[in-house]
């Protein structure tokens, strides 16, 4: 009977360690645009906001330190926090979906075309 290893891998593709999702740089799937964060716009957001540009009077979110809408919306958890504020966007994992730019009440994140970079 033959040995069942595939190219050094174990049967069933089990990997003998955890946290392996980090190895998969999903940013390589990004096709068209990258998010660019404008810190000045984010910080210029009045605290607390009186009339939320997105949700109006019904908005219960207090911007901007307590906003973090982009952070919580990112499906790939690639928006990093620094001291409770939005920090760098990790492009290793960003797929360019643009959800962060869509949810930002102040337009502090804009999607810029990456075309020509490939």
């Amino acid at each position, binding site marked *: 009977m033959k040995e069942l290893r595939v190219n050094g891998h174990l049967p069933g*593709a089990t990997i003998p*360690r955890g946290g392996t999702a980090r190895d998969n740089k999903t940013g390589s799937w990004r096709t068209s645009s990258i998010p660019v964060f404008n810190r000045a716009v984010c910080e210029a957001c009045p605290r607390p906001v009186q009339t939320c540009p997105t949700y109006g009077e019904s908005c219960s979110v207090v911007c901007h330190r307590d906003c973090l809408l982009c952070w919580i919306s990112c499906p790939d958890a690639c928006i990093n926090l620094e001291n409770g504020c939005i920090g760098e966007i990790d492009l290793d994992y960003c797929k360019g979906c643009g959800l962060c730019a869509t949810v930002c009440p102040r337009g502090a994140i804009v999607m810029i075309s990456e075309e020509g970079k490939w």
Partner: protein
Amino acid sequence: MPIQTKVERRVSAVTGNQALSRAVRQIDPDVAAVYPITPQTDVAEGLATFVADGMINTVLVPVESEHSAMSACIGAAAAGARAFTATSSQGLAYMFEVLYVAAGLRLPIVMANVNRSLSAPINIHCDHSDSFGARDSGWVQLYSENAQQAYDNLIQAVRIAEHSKVLLPVMVNVDGFIVSHAAESAVLLDDEEVRQFIGEYTPRFSLLDVDHPITVGPFDGLHGYFFEFKAAQVEAMANAKQVILDVGKEYGALSGRTYGFFEEYGLDDADTAIVVVGSAAATCSSVVDEMRAQGMPVGLLKLRSFRPFPAEELADALKYVKAVGVLDRAVSPGLAGGPLFAEVKSALFDADARPKVASFVYGLGGREFRPEHAREAFASLFEIKKTGYVNDLVSYLGIRKG
């Protein structure tokens, strides 16, 4: 450690389902996730009773569907547990996508499938459409002729599945109602004998071992090794052939009942033969006895292992036969003949003296298979042997005319 009990005598009157649930009690799996479905229901009930009475240490997961049952077994098996489930028909169909996951992750789950037809029209009786449909899912498939074989197959299934060169899930098939609900005598092993035979299971990894984390079921993209892992699965299925023989022999030394890929019945000097799986093999063997008493050299091959399919061994066993009839309790609309017929015919294609092969579809939706149907099949085979032509490639046995 299983709890030693003195419930069973060595000879018992059991239904197929009772034989299965008693085998499970003796195997004492760590986890059983079962959803009841006719005609499997009293396997689930028997198991629940054993758990409620504290006779086994099994954690019984009362899942809300068969899809969940198989998913729970996959989780449990990935955690290093011995996992068991049982189902029938629509339940197996509902498990379909997770059957491939269990096999692909190489988890040695054991399942009893009590064969029943697939809707529509809705029908609760036996045919093999359910398990034949899961043919390519990567599960080892064993078939049982009676309650005794259901019991024996289930115990051997644990050893086959967990063998380090196999690591594949095993499905033990038992004909619904015909075997599952009919009481017959069966010789059951003592608890201690079963415990010794199956041994302790030492999984390679456990998903719950937080000190040694593992990744189970990682994404394998376009540039991964999906193709190679599938080829390794095929390799494991090929390895299962030797393991089935070894385990069958070892079980024979323990119980007096040795198992292989199939049982040859009067094949030595037969010039016509029938190939069949499941309970109809018993009917066919009585017809073979009767016809042989009248001087007709007829034989029977009772197939036990459908996956892995023992093509070479089967061709060798049928090499002196002139005409072979393959009985299928399933249909594949659009295929010329039943699914088993296609495989047997393919296995015989390269045989030096290639026998003529005819397909006989019988027993769909539990339609009774009677001795006269086996005689009818043999009569067709005699005609084929005489003329050398297969005039009717596919015949339906016991179908109503008009």
